[in-house]
């Protein structure tokens, strides 16, 4: 007998059902014809998708969230990738301390980061602004990118960069012609995941958003707090589809488990 065994497989299947239940249920709900949450729905329709598209605050928040996620991803890559390079290629004193410093924010709950940012941003009038929310998200995405790209750079094929150097390429040319192209799959996966991290970020956004500017998850929380109708399910289907697309890309490139796992 090899593999997992029958009993374990059965227990695992039940556990999987529990994990995936909320997601599956949401997808069914999205096509409900009812005006409130009734499961199973008494009929099916696309009415909640139409309602969703007509909901101005949510659509506006969706636009802002996409905008913020793009800005956050771009900026985080710009500062995170060089930092990861420094950690992996440089041999300098205090390197491990620096690594610890970069990864520390991942250990602090977003609840506390969010609160700290609220205190910090309010006097600077950065709350409920695009730059404020973006900076808030970067406390999560920058450490994440540094961690993931350090692993990517550390696991490049042996000696390939050294070979480039012996062939006459100065360090920055080695990075440009060898390191980055070889780390490209990791880089793309990293960008995709940091987009998701920013797009889905809720707690920090709740602290630093406001009526002037709020992201999609924040608007969703507000909506769910007030009403319970299947519109959020319709929106969720779109988000799940988007997430799935990104996850498939990442899985193809580097493997999701390696990407999100504690390296």
């Amino acid at each position: 007998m090899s593999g997992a065994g029958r009993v374990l497989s059965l227990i695992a299947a039940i556990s999987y059902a529990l994990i995936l239940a909320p997601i599956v249920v949401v997808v069914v709900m999205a096509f409900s014809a009812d005006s409130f949450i009734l499961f199973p729905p008494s009929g099916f329709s696309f009415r909640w998708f139409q309602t969703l598209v007509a909901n101005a605050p949510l659509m506006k928040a969706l636009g802002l969230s996409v905008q913020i996620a793009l800005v956050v991803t771009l900026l985080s890559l710009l500062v995170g990738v060089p930092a990861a390079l420094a950690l992996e290629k440089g041999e300098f004193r205090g390197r491990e301390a620096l690594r610890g410093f970069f990864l520390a924010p991942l250990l602090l709950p977003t609840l506390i980061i969010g609160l700290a940012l609220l205190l910090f941003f309010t006097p600077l009038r950065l709350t409920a602004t695009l730059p404020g929310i973006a900076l808030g998200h970067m406390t999560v995405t920058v450490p994440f990118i540094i961690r993931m790209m350090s692993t990517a750079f550390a696991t490049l094929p042996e000696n390939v960069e050294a070979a480039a150097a012996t062939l006459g390429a100065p360090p920055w040319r080695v990075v440009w012609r060898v390191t980055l192209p070889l780390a490209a799959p990791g880089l793309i996966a990293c960008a995709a995941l940091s987009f998701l991290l920013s797009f889905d970020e809720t707690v920090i956004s709740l602290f630093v958003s406001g009526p002037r500017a709020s992201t999609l998850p924040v608007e969703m929380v507000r909506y769910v707090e007030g009403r319970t109708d299947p519109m959020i399910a319709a929106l969720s289907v779109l988000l799940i589809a988007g997430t799935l697309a990104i996850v498939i890309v990442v899985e193809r490139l580097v493997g999701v488990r390696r990407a999100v796992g504690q390296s």
Partner: protein
Amino acid sequence: MAYLELTGLEKRYRDAVAVADVTLAVEKGESVALLGPSGCGKTTTLRMLAGLAAPDRGRIAVDGTDITDLPAHRRNMGYVFQSYALFPHMSVARNVTFGLEERGVAAKERAARAADALEMVRLKELGHRRPRELSGGQQQRVALARALVIRPSVLLLDESLSNLDAKLRQTMRREIRDLQRTLAITTLFVTHDQVEALAMCDRIAVMNHGRIEQVGTPADVYERPATRFVAGFVGSVNVLPATRDGQGGLAVWGMPIPGIASFAQGDADVFVRPQRMRLVAASENVAPDVPRLKGKVAQSIFIGDQVETVVSGEGGQVTVQSLSGAPTPQAGTEVQVVWKVEDTLIFSREAS
């Protein structure tokens, strides 16, 4: 002054000493092997030469110029890595032209030189392929072409053949040696394989514990090893614990070893290579100035063109290697083991 000079090189990793004190001079066009067991510091020495590791002490000079502090990309050394380290995202041709591009060589000349280099390693047709589409031997040749096309001042080979199978290794050995001779390129190569070292170089530097124990021609190192380590590492050898007889001479298994000039104090071992030993019948009269041992044949092992005969005596066992084909004595037969005086090597026993 020699073309390539390493003087007092030292490298530590935290508390571990990788290279203790390496001094070596290599003439232009010469091929020198750094031979030693794994962990002896040979690869670290090579990496320091290429600028991939910074020495803690010592200097490196090529053609009279000190290059100790020069970064790797300005040293102009061709390095062939054990894993080949080909760029997986570039075609074979692009791999070969990489160094030329970095040197700003014009496209036309680049193409011509790369084609020459690939032809030299007999891979002219495969320039468009990706490295992973090549066999191990072909990848090895690409790595060689890539290192040679930049016309390096020194060619460095790091265990370059160890990933190939035995047969291919033999072919590549000859090919690399031929190329090295034709191009008259100064070459330093690292290996733990003594056959490779003996076959591919003009001189061998035997390394142990971060130091060079002996430098010499293959024959020198084999026939006149300077230390116990060299004697044991290069070629196979019988180690025979010696006792002192009354007159300051040495005896093995109770038999005095003739032809030995007086030996310094302390315990010593006699080293004799199995190929230099001969079996003769117990009854045969051996001249008194010929070193000999007496014993019984324990077993004979047929290893192709050679036969190894293990002889047991009162002080232990010796292995005698002889050409196969001749009749071998049965196990249990009383025999004498003889060898020439000049094949006797004596080393004092280390304190450890």
